[in-house]
């Protein structure tokens, strides 16, 4: 019971703490779209197009014919192949101090990553994760594949 209360408190703190990443904060922009690509925000799915902003908490989905490329504000390049679901769980970047943090989940499909300024300056504040594993990066390019049909 106490645990549940703490969890609720943490969620609350995360929502109100200044300087923390919150849903709706600008994280990047869609630069490449092929085939079917959608972005789910606040429970609503919309078709993604080139130039569409990407925000914290967005869920990016590609169809069987789809792929998408996104550049985050710290110059991280993300691109997903067909049948993928990628979630921008956290992102914050201050242009003046260049401090920031990010957390990106790959739930299914394929994702390629070329890491950006946050990973260069503070690699410990960057993580990518699959349903079972967490990836720590050190100024890096890599690809991740997750099999299955998870849609959450």
């Amino acid at each position: 019971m106490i645990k549940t209360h703490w969890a609720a408190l943490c969620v609350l703190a995360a929502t109100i703490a200044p300087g923390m990443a919150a849903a709706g904060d600008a994280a990047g922009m869609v630069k490449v779209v092929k085939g079917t690509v959608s972005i789910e925000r606040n429970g609503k799915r919309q078709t993604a197009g080139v130039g569409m902003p990407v925000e914290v908490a967005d869920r990016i989905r590609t169809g069987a014919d789809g792929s998408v490329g996104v550049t985050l504000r710290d110059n991280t390049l993300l691109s997903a192949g067909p049948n993928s679901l990628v979630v921008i769980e956290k992102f914050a970047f201050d242009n003046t101090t260049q401090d920031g943090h990010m957390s990106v989940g790959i739930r299914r499909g394929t994702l390629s990553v070329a890491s950006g300024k946050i990973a260069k300056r503070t690699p410990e504040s960057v993580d990518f994760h699959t349903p079972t594993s967490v990836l720590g990066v050190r100024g890096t390019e890599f690809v991740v594949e997750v099999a299955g049909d998870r849609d959450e």
Partner: protein
Amino acid sequence: MNKAKLSLALAGLLVLAGCTTERVVLLPSANGASSAVVVRDAKGEVLLDKPYAAVKRSLDANTGYQSSPDEVKARFAGALAAQPARPASYVLYFEAGGNVLTPESQSALTTIRQEIAERAASEVMVIGHTDRVGSVEDNDRLSQKRAEGLRDLLVESGVPAEKMEAVGRGERDPLVPTADEVDEPKNRRVEISVR
């Protein structure tokens, strides 16, 4: 066959096939710098620190192996083909103590405008820097002024203002490290990052 039986049979088949559920491959970095990825799960971690070093997950465990360009192409062609253009960075220099570009830097502006126009949904970050002559506060102001001046110059030449962001980093990020109060032309600069 009912649904439960079917999925049981399928699961059995997948286990027999040594089903891989996840895979991570480290790629060579574009600039040739050394890089690494650490893949951690509940049981431990695998370090990938050479090009095409990889990990695959089957039967609930991560195992390291050596992947190859062919395998990456076969599995990740779609994702890699959709990678956005790499951000390009330009550096423009100023005459001492003020807000006037050197002649070389004036002409570099043409290339930058072209780059901004050619990219899909381009965004521009204008970052001002100073040398270490003067106080930190004055240099913060000067670097911000330089960045804004350059942004205005780009706006005048037709680049939409909403694509651009101007920030000043003062003297804290010198291109050439110097002692305080050193007049170093290479540190009086504005960096323009187009992504």
